[in-house]
């Protein structure tokens, strides 16, 4: 019973923040909620282990991001919904002026977009992002530099910045 309460508290404290970050990444509220819920289910399946980690939310975040970038998962999810006769319903999202950055991010390559969100929104250090994605830190820096340059073109109020100041 204690385990159930612990997980419920963790869920309430983590879900919104994770899902909101993934919404910025995917641009789709339903998709963001879906991957975070799936990550939560996986955490629950091994909660006795995950709960002992220093940051259980980091484990769930990593799983959720892996799910969000998994093409296979998207295909499987589509098939699952189709088999249930599911009809896509658009979730109401934020106002358009709030999502200008989301639209601009959608033009970025997947990895650049992921690096930007993890670094500027989730406040993860570059080393942690590199470990999470499985690339060198220099690669992450390069992605961030290019992403900022691209976003500067899209959003006039943004100005380019040197990568070594990231």
């Amino acid at each position, binding site marked *: 019973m204690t385990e*159930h309460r612990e*997980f*419920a508290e963790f*869920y*309430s404290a983590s*879900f*919104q*923040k994770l*899902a*909101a*970050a993934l*919404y*910025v990444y995917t641009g789709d*509220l339903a998709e*963001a*909620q879906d991957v975070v*819920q799936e990550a*939560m*289910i996986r955490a*629950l*399946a091994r909660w006795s282990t995950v709960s002992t980690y220093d940051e259980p939310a980091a484990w769930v975040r990593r799983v959720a991001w892996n799910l969000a970038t998994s093409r296979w998962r998207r295909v499987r999810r589509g098939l699952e919904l189709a088999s249930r006769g599911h009809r896509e319903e658009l*979730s*109401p*999202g*934020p*106002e358009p002026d*709030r*999502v*200008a*950055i*989301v639209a601009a991010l959608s033009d970025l390559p997947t990895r650049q977009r992921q690096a*930007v*969100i993890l670094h*500027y*929104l989730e406040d993860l250090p570059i080393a942690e992002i590199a470990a999470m994605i499985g690339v060198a830190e220099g690669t992450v820096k390069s992605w961030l530099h290019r992403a*900022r340059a691209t*976003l*500067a073109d899209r*959003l006039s*109020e*943004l*100005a*380019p*910045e040197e990568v070594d*100041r*990231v």
Partner: protein
Amino acid sequence: MSDDLRRMLAEASRAAQPHLRPPGPDAARNTLRRRRVMRVSGLAMVLVLALVLATNLLPRPTSPMPPLVPTPSIGPTVDPSASPSGPVSATPTVVPSLSPSATPAPGSSPSPGATPSGRPGSSGQPVANPSPSPSPSPSPPPPACVDIVEPQITNATTPAPATMTFSIAPADLERLCDGWQIRITWAAYYVYQDSSQMMASANDFVLSAATPTRTGRLYSEYNCPADRYFYFGAHTFPETIPAGEHLDLPAWSPGRSTGLFRQHFLNVNC
């Protein structure tokens, strides 16, 4: 730019949060439970399917003690039983048989029929007749394979010296289970001066797929052949048998793989 970017991302994230509808921890628990049930059900179905396939595809195990089914032999066969008190001319009775048939009860006079094989080396040696015990019946059908069958013995009743040959009929070879082994112990006696019986020859060996045919040498019985016993399994026969007596070995019967499977009372008045 970094600060602007952080601010814009944080605003977009904050703007999204009111629109989020978390399914809740209970929904996660229910989903997990449903998946576990599905997984267990799937595993159970796979196991059941595997069991059904294994049951149908694997060869059926044979019963440990299959009944001895006589093999029909073609050609003249020798009546395995001769009266202990029979006359000297009680040579094996030849009975043409295509199927196992009951033989005359001990004590009945052997018929003075053809005597084709009394001498060693002659062609057309008699073949011992199968045991008279089970009468063939149309049902039940024979099992897929059997562990033991009655070997054929040539010269089982031929006076010594002679060589007996133990073999498995080709039809039996086909229905014996893989790895079959049939151990045979035999002994031949001759009549001693006080009318007791003395062991003249004895041996034991194993018939198998590698050696489906073996021979046994009958040494001289001084022209007074007496009892001969053939036993499934290992057995120690006595050196002597008192006058007027015969070994009381357990008769072979369906359900057992050892025991007497043939006895010939060739005791004659020498």
